[in-house]
């Protein structure tokens, strides 16, 4: 962190920092300091730049600056077909890549007007919930590491490695695996993957209890987090928070129950909410949500039917390789889909799923061509980050780290 004067910062940012001040000194920055928690920082969860205006140790105003990881996703989507964009959706929220794949596949299927077969949908549910557990484990681990408890980070990463092993067996890649396809999934779940998933959920709860025993009654942990970054339910909805940050303020809003997708309305689980609205409540929400995910995975593994994993509709869905090499019709359809893309009807849809970070939405506008005319990605981390200036006002610098960690932003998705 370096001290900079107001001549080093862009004038528009200085204007934003000095806004709504109730200080009547002539030069407001004489007694105060602008501190730059720069894009490269151990505790800002990626490349986020926070410009803080400090009065001693307490923060008077804060201006976040994004855009250090802006890779131009929306412009890229306008130039690629729907199939070609699947690997790009992996890199959005890179802690839970499977969940983004499922979100994109659901959005395009809604636009085209098809539905994947039941076995594919059950497998999609299983990998979404595994992605949720993986993401929350990293969130808890790095959050605890920022507060100072280094051991918890290593233990949660060890659990996460087991989930990455399951994905490795399932589709060949540990991480950023583009597993879903439009109309189903890439390949079937092998028996080893299912057995490993069963073994994982049986031994997960004890390991989570072990990590929680270190933290839940730890005096330092609780005193550092209780009452820090409080936001009420009304304000949270006003600011657009979704996901665990909203459920930690008492609002019971979960897209898996309000607008169910896949087979979530057949599953029996509860939505975890805590009414306090501080950082400790958000941490508890995440830890308990992983337990609910274990319940869902257990039910999925019991109820999974046998059957196809890719829809059999050659005009819209890439047909299987064995049929392409032996039948003429399928060969023609494969050629058309790969070269020109699936041609959906003219129109626009918005489809949202419940990602581990919040609500991930895709707004796709189609003019009947093989590539979208416009694709907007509504990322939860972008909207969650907007609440930082509200939560930080009046607190000290060390609380900034705790608050950013409890909101759990991922810059790959906030910067698109």
């Amino acid at each position, binding site marked *: 962190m370096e001290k900079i004067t107001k001549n080093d910062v*862009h004038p*528009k*940012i200085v204007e*934003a920092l000095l*806004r709504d001040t109730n200080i009547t000194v002539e030069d407001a920055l004489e007694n105060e300091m602008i501190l730059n928690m720069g894009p490269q920082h151990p505790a800002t969860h990626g490349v986020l730049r926070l410009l803080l205006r400090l009065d001693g140790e307490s923060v008077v105003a804060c201006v976040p600056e*994004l*855009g250090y990881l*802006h890779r*131009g996703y*929306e*412009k*890229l989507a306008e*130039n690629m077909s729907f199939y070609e964009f699947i690997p790009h959706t992996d890199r959005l929220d890179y802690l839970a890549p499977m969940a983004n794949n499922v979100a994109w596949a659901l959005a395009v299927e*809604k*636009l085209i*007007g098809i539905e994947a077969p039941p076995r594919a949908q059950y497998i999609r549910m299983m990998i979404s919930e595994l992605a949720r557990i993986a993401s929350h484990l990293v969130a808890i681990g790095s959050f605890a590491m920022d507060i100072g408890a280094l051991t918890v980070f290593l233990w949660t990463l060890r659990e996460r490695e087991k989930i990455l092993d399951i994905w490795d067996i399932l589709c060949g890649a540990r991480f950023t695996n583009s597993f879903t396809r439009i109309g189903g999934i890439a390949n079937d779940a092998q028996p080893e993957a299912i057995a490993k998933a069963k073994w994982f959920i049986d031994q997960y709860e004890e390991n989570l209890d072990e990590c929680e025993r270190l933290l839940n009654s730890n005096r330092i942990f609780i005193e550092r987090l209780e009452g820090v970054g409080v936001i009420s339910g009304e304000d949270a*909805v*006003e*600011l*657009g928070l*979704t996901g665990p940050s909203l459920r930690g303020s008492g*609002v019971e*809003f979960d897209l898996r129950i*309000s*607008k169910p997708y896949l087979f979530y309305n057949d599953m029996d689980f509860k939505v975890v909410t805590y009414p306090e609205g501080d950082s400790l409540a958000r941490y508890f929400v995440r830890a308990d949500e992983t337990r609910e995910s274990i319940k869902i995975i257990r039910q999925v593994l019991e109820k999974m039917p046998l059957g196809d994993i890719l829809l059999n509709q050659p005009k819209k869905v890439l047909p299987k390789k064995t049929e392409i090499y032996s039948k003429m019709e399928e060969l023609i359809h494969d050629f058309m889909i790969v070269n020109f893309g699936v041609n959906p009807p003219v*129109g*626009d*849809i*918005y489809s*949202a799923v419940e990602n581990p970070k919040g*609500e991930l*939405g895709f*707004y796709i*506008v189609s003019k009947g061509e093989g590539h979208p*005319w*416009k694709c*907007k990605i*509504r990322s939860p981390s*972008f*909207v969650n*980050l*907007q609440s930082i200036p509200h939560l930080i006002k009046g607190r000290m610098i060390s609380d900034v780290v705790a608050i950013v960690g409890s909101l759990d932003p991922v810059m790959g998705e906030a*910067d*698109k």
Partner: protein
Amino acid sequence: MSSLKELIIQKLKDKFGSVNFEFSEFRDELTVLFDKKNVVEVCRFLKDDNELQFKLCEDVTAIDWARSKNRFTVVYHIYSIKNGFRLALKADVDESGCSIDSVSSVWETANWEERETYDMYGIIFNNHPDLRRMYMPEEFEYYPLRKDFPLMGIPGSNPLPKK
């Protein structure tokens, strides 16, 4: 669900008789198109009404149609937690006089979303508390998501440090 759609259509027509609404439905979602000068009133009514309560603003974005008349369309997606219903609002914006009123006084979420739309498309939002660029550096002169901006960028527009 269809009764809620009819309720919304009825309420909007009753309250804003002079405004010309165009309702359309695609894949079971309702879209309302209206003139850009009524944006703030319609949004405030939808948020404050007791039965509707569209308190969560999910998304604000724009579409560039690349045509000479009414080049842009600004799209708002709002959600009502009480009824579990999502609504899309649209307003056309012309290229000359490329501006529309800001709804950040109605929903706080729209603050950053509108800044992002300004950064990417160049649409100015009147009465916005803090209209700055979001992703691109302040010195950048172009608007990336417009259809006349090439994918690889314009050489020289973004400086790189020397080796």
